[in-house]
């Protein structure tokens, strides 16, 4: 419970809008206690900026308990900052030392245009899910839940993949800004379950086509995504996605249509 006060220098990416070139701005964060969360530290800086008539640093956040996936920034070159398996909102200032310089940048990817400062547009992820990341079940037409047993091990694996919070850290961390981990997690979650079999092949083809259409890069197996993922989503799902896609593309009767951004 020991508490210390920190004085920090922040180099923050400021960008007025999607078309602005952007620049770094330096701010001082004074008397920050080590018990503060990283975002509370930014709250303090922002409240002071507002009182001084300046524009506060825009950043995305919502639940502040590491589950909604809204927050995210690159802190000293690492997506979500230095603590493993931790979203930006769950990062605390005790991870830093007095006098530290901290560089804050947005997720940088053509698929995630910057809206303002550290806020990016992640609707590309929504469009990847819209392309096929679901099981088509009409409301009210489901059969009895226990009719179809699912082996515990398979259900657990599906849950592992389904833990993805859609924050985009995988894209931010990947040297190629690839969205493979995100896409693979959903393809794997649904392809593992018996309920997801009917659309399995179509789903893989459409979701990958959308992922490509959004302008994300390809996977070159660096493993940066897995290391940055606050939920520890595994690279093995990318291997599974590759399998799913090859099988679907090779066995399909006709090629599928490409998709638009």
């Amino acid at each position: 419970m020991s508490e210390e006060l920190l004085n920090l220098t922040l180099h923050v990416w400021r960008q007025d809008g999607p078309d602005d070139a952007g620049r770094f701005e330096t701010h001082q964060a004074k008397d920050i206690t080590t018990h503060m969360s990283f975002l509370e530290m930014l709250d303090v800086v922002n409240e002071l900026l507002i009182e001084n008539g300046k524009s506060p640093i825009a950043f995305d956040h919502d639940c502040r308990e590491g589950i909604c996936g809204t927050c995210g920034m690159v802190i000293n070159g690492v997506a979500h900052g230095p603590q493993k398996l931790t979203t930006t909102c769950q990062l605390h200032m005790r991870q830093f030392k007095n006098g530290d310089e901290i560089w804050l940048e947005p997720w940088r990817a053509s698929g995630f245009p910057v809206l303002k400062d550290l806020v990016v547009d992640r609707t590309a992820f929504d469009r990847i899910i819209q392309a096929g990341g679901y099981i088509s079940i009409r409301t009210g037409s489901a059969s009895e839940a226990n009719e179809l047993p699912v082996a515990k091990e398979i259900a657990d694996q599906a849950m592992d993949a389904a833990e993805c919070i859609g924050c985009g850290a995988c894209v931010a961390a990947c040297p190629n800004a690839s969205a493979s981990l995100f896409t693979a997690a959903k393809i794997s979650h649904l392809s593992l379950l018996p309920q997801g079999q009917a659309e399995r092949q179509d789903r893989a083809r459409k979701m990958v086509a959308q992922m490509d259409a959004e302008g994300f890069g390809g996977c070159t197996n660096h493993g940066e995504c897995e290391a940055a993922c606050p939920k520890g989503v595994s690279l093995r799902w990318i291997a599974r996605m590759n399998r799913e896609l090859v099988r679907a593309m090779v066995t399909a009767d006709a090629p599928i249509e490409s998709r638009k951004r």
Partner: protein
Amino acid sequence: MQRALTLHQTTIGKKVAMALSGVILVGFTVGHFLGNLNLYLGQEAMDGYAETLQSLTPVLWGTRLLLLFAFGVHIASAISLWVRNTQARGSRYKKRTDLATDYAARTMYWSGPILLLFVVYHLLHFTILPDHPGEVYRNVVEGFQNPLIAGVYMAANVALGFHIFHGFYSAFQTLGANHPRYNSYRRDAAIAISAAITIGNLSFPISVLAGLVTL
């Protein structure tokens, strides 16, 4: 009317193409290295081995065409992915800290072109414009007695080692083979094969320079 997508038009398809062509190239590299071990059996063995290969014209040209095709696919896919991946980042990070990637993976875009240049040089040196046509043993030994040439070969083989290490390891992932229970074997296999080829290939110029293999 939107265009229809085939497997190779997806980023995953391109990686699959790279992995499959890579497997062919690694296979050739292993065979090439094993054949070159004839160097240690002396001039007669080496030249005889070369002559046998030359006499099997359909096999020789079949292999050459397959390799050419594999190179073509490997390089074309790599370039296409490289262009795409560079564009995907957009603006660069001011600060960037790597967490998981390794030297071999990071340098694939360097080791690749280096290997291509080396292959061209290697073909010119020993196959297309040899100093003494038909005398493979002599060409090799005379060539490696020049420290500069030996140095080029050694450097290129170190690059080859890194390239194969990441390529071999990564091909499993690309082709869908990733299982927590077997992943450590996958890594061990990649280390073993890349180390064997690199150390083996390095031994040739070193043996010549050290005077262990002479004319």
